[in-house]
């Protein structure tokens, strides 16, 4: 059995990404946000095939190239070098956001600053007076993609809950998040609020509830799993 030290409790970044990957159905068209969401591509379950879309005009995005093989004209939305898999296609920004805004992308995995109990997402600006607003494609993704999954630490580095009753930061979208994967738990956004789906190893319901700044429902009440 694993040790009972608190440092070992919970999921690390890779495990959070792995949890999210398990929930994505075979054949999905997937857009991955920058940061931890990018790790999802490493954990595609056996027997499933996902096709990755990146906003800057590539369907069929593959992993990073070998060192020395980087092409400055083959990049992802985070402006990092990527590859194109066999069967990939390139297209312009109008087409790329037709895929997003027209509801053709099945799943988008994003990071978050705050998520509210009604599924509001804030992930683009702290609203600080000297902040330079930079939204990129986030608002288009949450408005147009069928299922929005969020991977995020449960609290900020200072221990402040990111799952809240109402977001204090400017919103990226309203009532858009379906499910949240944190280092402590998987949580659904339901019409009744946050509902626990499962706990990370060594983590208790009470700990998750204490670190969530909104009511947390236990998993037993009307859990509808796909």
């Amino acid at each position, binding site marked *: 059995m694993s040790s009972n030290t608190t440092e070992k409790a919970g999921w690390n970044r890779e495990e959070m990404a792995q949890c999210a990957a398990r929930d994505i159905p075979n054949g999905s068209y997937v857009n991955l946000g920058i940061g931890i969401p990018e790790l999802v591509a490493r954990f595609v379950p056996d027997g499933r095939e996902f096709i990755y879309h990146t906003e800057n*005009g590539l369907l069929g995005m593959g992993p990073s190239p070998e060192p020395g093989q980087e092409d400055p004209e083959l990049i992802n939305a985070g402006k990092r070098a990527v590859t194109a898999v066999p069967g990939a296609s390139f297209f312009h920004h109008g087409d790329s*956001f037709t895929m*997003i805004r027209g509801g053709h992308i099945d799943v988008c995995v994003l990071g978050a600053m705050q998520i509210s109990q009604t599924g509001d997402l804030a992930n683009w600006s702290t609203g600080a007076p000297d902040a*330079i*607003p*930079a*939204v990129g494609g986030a608002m288009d993704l949450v408005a*147009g993609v069928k299922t929005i999954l969020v991977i995020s630490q449960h609290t900020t580095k200072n221990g402040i809950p990111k799952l809240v009753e109402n977001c204090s930061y400017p*919103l990226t979208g309203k009532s858009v998040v379906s499910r949240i994967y944190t280092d402590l738990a998987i949580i659904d956004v339901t019409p009744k609020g946050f509902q626990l789906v499962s706990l990370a190893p060594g983590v208790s319901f009470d700990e998750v509830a204490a670190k969530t700044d909104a009511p947390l429902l236990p998993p037993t009440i009307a859990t509808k799993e796909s």
Partner: protein
Amino acid sequence: MIDKRIKTIASVLSDISDGATIMVGGFGEAGSPIELIHALIDNGAKELTVINNNTGNGEVGLAALIGNGQVKKMICSYPRSSHSKVFPELFRAGKIELEIVPQGTLAERIRAGGAGIPAFYTATTIGTPLSEGKEIRNIKGRDYVLEYGLVADFALIKCEEADRLGNLTYNKTARNFNPIMCTAAKVTIVQARKFVEVGDLNPEHVITPNIYVDRIVEVTTPLIESQLIEKGARYP
């Protein structure tokens, strides 16, 4: 005979003057027409409104144009990056205007502008600060915000191959905003990595049909922005 090819980069945009609105292709460095931007710095036109997804990197290309004090206003979706210093400093000092537009709305505004569509409704930004003060309409039970099409006096474009008529192809994700910007400007100016003969491009593979293109200049080995930044280069 139609021939849109121009011999020298200096003469390709000599008629851009103060106050012009200019679409600049590219997403970061990919597809950025860096030689045309440097020619615009040499040209010296001021009070420009520039439409691009970003605000440039380091002190070359778009960042150099901004740093040279030629840009009054940026319309973009993401004005910061790990290597962008010029724009943030000017913005914080109140020396440049910013219109922040979600990336998909930016693309659609350009596409609409090029297609003669003056405005459209979109769900993007509903419930966020970016829809405040804009017209909102409920269509079939969902709220949408009115956004206006964008047009420009000039578009500066980077492509891969071009023939004398102005048919264009692109390279990988360097395509990005370039084809839609070709459609939305009064004058579309292109730097091509390679001139080809009319007929060399398979009509099935032409990405930008020549009707959208006005001038083409060949730049066979364009500067690579990230390499310039690594060297600490600046323009001029």
